[in-house]
């Protein structure tokens, strides 16, 4: 490819002719992501107050091992070393974290907000060297599709949690009956938003139809699946943020109810 010689020097960090407040956007993204990472790390380390009534916090779902009635295989495994901090969240949180970390939207967003690469469009950068996603380490981002496969499974599990959030056991009689609490709605909104985010994934869009040049030859179901995923994909950033905020709030809600600070209001 042709070389080009540009006489003007590369702009310095932060140098730009832009007159708008270009730094606000990366700052808001950094603050939003930073806050979420801080809260979710704290919440994952708690290892308690993650379930209340029929509700289970999404940070702790699926609960493979743990002390709540939601645990699949009983309490904490005996092989877990005593010196290692324990929380049921540790076993599964890597999947949603990995999914978001390698998501095409978040990648672009945090490269800007945390790595200033670039700080914003047409604004000078701090470093001259640049590797991009072409070589190690960022070439690893290409595993995204594998996280997507797992994330789709998680949507099923969270939908199951939302369903379980509709069945309340009377502590006096032990009878389980259908009901709707504010928490049930919180859990349902959570799985809906996470679904909108996950099913709008670029890797999924590729898998269900993007890879084909002649989709018209595919089964009608495949064609409409591609259209649905593409439709969600158009607002992928919005889904990403809405689901991020809500999954955090869902944990807060369950935690507050479990601690007895908030009372879950029964609607039905």
């Amino acid at each position, binding site marked *: *490819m*042709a*070389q*080009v*010689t*540009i*006489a*003007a020097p*590369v*702009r310095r960090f932060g140098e*730009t*002719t*832009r*007159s*708008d407040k270009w730094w606000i956007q990366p700052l808001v993204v950094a603050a939003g992501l930073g806050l979420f990472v801080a809260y979710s790390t704290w919440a994952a380390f708690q290892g308690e107050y993650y379930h209340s009534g029929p509700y289970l916090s999404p940070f702790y779902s699926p609960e493979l091992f743990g002390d709540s009635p939601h645990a699949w295989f009983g309490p904490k495994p005996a092989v877990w070393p005593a010196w290692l901090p324990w929380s049921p969240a540790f076993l599964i949180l890597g999947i949603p974290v990995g999914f978001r970390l390698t998501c*095409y939207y978040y*990648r*672009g967003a945090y*490269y*800007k907000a945390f790595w200033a*690469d*670039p700080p914003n*469009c*047409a604004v*000078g*950068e701090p470093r*001259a060297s*640049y590797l*991009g*996603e*072409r*070589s190690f380490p*960022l*070439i690893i981002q*290409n595993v995204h*599709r594998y996280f997507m496969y797992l994330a789709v499974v998680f949507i099923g599990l969270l939908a199951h949690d939302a369903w379980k959030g509709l069945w309340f056991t009377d502590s006096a009689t032990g009878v389980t009956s259908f009901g709707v609490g504010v928490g049930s709605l919180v859990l349902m909104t959570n799985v809906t938003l996470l679904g909108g985010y996950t099913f709008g994934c*670029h*890797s999924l*869009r*590729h898998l269900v139809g*993007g*890879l084909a*040049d*002649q*989709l*018209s030859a595919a089964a009608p179901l495949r*064609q409409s699946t591609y259209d649905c995923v593409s439709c969600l*994909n*158009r607002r*992928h950033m919005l889904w990403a943020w809405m689901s991020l905020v809500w999954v955090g709030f869902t944990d807060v809600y369950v935690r507050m109810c479990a601690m007895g600070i908030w009372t879950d209001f029964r609607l039905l």
Partner: protein
Amino acid sequence: METATFRIWRGNADGGEFKEYSTEITDGMVVLDAVLQIQAAAANDLAVRWNCKAGKCGSCSAEVNGNPRLMCMTRMDTVPTDQPVAIEPMQTFPSIRDLVTDVSWNFTVKQGIPPFTPRPADAPDGTWRMQQRDVNRVQEFRKCIECFLCQDVCHVLRDHRKHDEFIGPRFLVYAAALEMHPLDVADRVEELAEADGIGYCNITKCCTKVCPEEITITDNAIIPLKERVVDRLYDPISKLLRMFR
């Protein structure tokens, strides 16, 4: 009538500086009108390239207050005039003079991309059949007017100057238009990963933001191509599946 001040970059490859000019702003005026008014009244030797004044030839690309824009499509009522309006040439290409840059690198890059290669004709009269559904995607990319604003803003070229290793968003759009075409049978995937440097793109979407044709460059062209590269080069399962197909 309102008067606005402009800071226009004057110079060439050896260097230059911003010079201030004032001109009257009337209703419906675009930045290019103001620049041409200044050229007529106060700076006869100001070099500026333009042609259609309709956002279709892609000649009048420049940076207005630091944002890559078509001057003919930037209405003055969208530009704040309480401060002088800065107008400078695109930063990613060599300067020729004033607002004019040498964009010929782009034409060289384009020549390096394997051209449209259709499969054998479908009908005896030498014609093909295709479904509208299959060309929808490609039609978005064909709106490109080659203004090269996306190339200008892309930090891989602008700040890291990887002109010899990265073809830039414009040509990723071009490659996508060919690669996703229902009739095309050429294979550009490995080339995209290697010579074309698609991995340099870190999907920060500045190209999408500046495209005057509103082509969803990153989401609809670059990321789908990146996914095809993953299929071919990095994903062990799709590699395995290909062996059995």
